């Protein structure tokens, strides 16, 4: 994951988003969302740029970025594995599933794997409670899981 995301092209995209939102009240959150989409994360350089353009102090932006769990300053792995630990999944044994994945990729929840390939997160309820327990790997959703299903799923990535 040594890929440099702070490219000229990405900053141009950001500029466009900023221009579109500049006049709006409360523009910071929408800009941060788009920024995260463009860069994959919100490193301090990106926050500085937003600060200058929106005339909001960097400390305030940093405060907002760190407050919300969806915003990330560090880049995430190629595959983000989310294990739902909502109540419905939890009572249906989501915890052993999280432990199993953690064991397989040797990564603690909330961290990136050593090779930067995976990010493991324990997510909030994603609302697919009918399929509990559920995990997501980027856009893919796997439901009605048992611990034994995990190695098979992980092999695909």
């Amino acid at each position, binding site marked *: 994951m040594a890929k440099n995301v702070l490219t000229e092209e990405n900053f141009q995209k950001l500029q466009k988003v900023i221009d579109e939102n500049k006049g709006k009240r409360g523009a910071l959150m929408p800009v941060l969302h788009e920024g995260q989409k463009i860069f994959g994360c919100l490193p301090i350089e990106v926050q500085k740029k937003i600060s200058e353009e929106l005339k909001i102090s960097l400390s305030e932006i940093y405060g907002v970025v760190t407050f919300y769990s969806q915003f990330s300053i560090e880049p995430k792995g190629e595959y983000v594995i989310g294990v739902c630990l909502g109540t419905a999944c939890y009572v249906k044994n989501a915890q052993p599933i999280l432990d199993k994945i953690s064991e397989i990729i040797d990564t603690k929840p909330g961290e990136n794997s050593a090779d930067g390939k995976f990010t493991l997160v324990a997510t909030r309820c*994603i*609302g*697919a*409670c*009918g*399929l509990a327990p*559920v995990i997501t790997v980027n856009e893919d*959703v796997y*439901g009605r899981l048992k611990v034994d299903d995990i190695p098979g799923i992980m092999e695909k990535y």
Partner: protein
Amino acid sequence: MKSIAELQKIRKEALEKVNLRSDRKGTRIVVGMATCGISAGARPVMMALIEEVKKRNVEHVVVTQTGCIGACRLEPMIEVYKEGEEKVTYVDLTAEKARKIIVDHIVNGKVVDEYTIGAYEK
């Protein structure tokens, strides 16, 4: 929208398409495409339905998406509103099953009982 008459006009036109009673014209197939349906595999089911309808050249069949039908555990599920018939709910589908429904039920008029909610509940 500048007037209520305009709204009524849209309503009247649209009502014919979405008539859910058996006196409707043509067939309407709705696929549950809320988050749970999609995660359970509703997309391939919907693609299979559309493809099969196209392939068989069946007329007056609309395949469309809808929100949560409510019984998440039975996803992916579809509901078939066919002219002259009561609604049929098919559950726990796959693309393969979806194709069979088009062939048997939509083309040949024979409800695929083993995929209906009644059969699943047993």
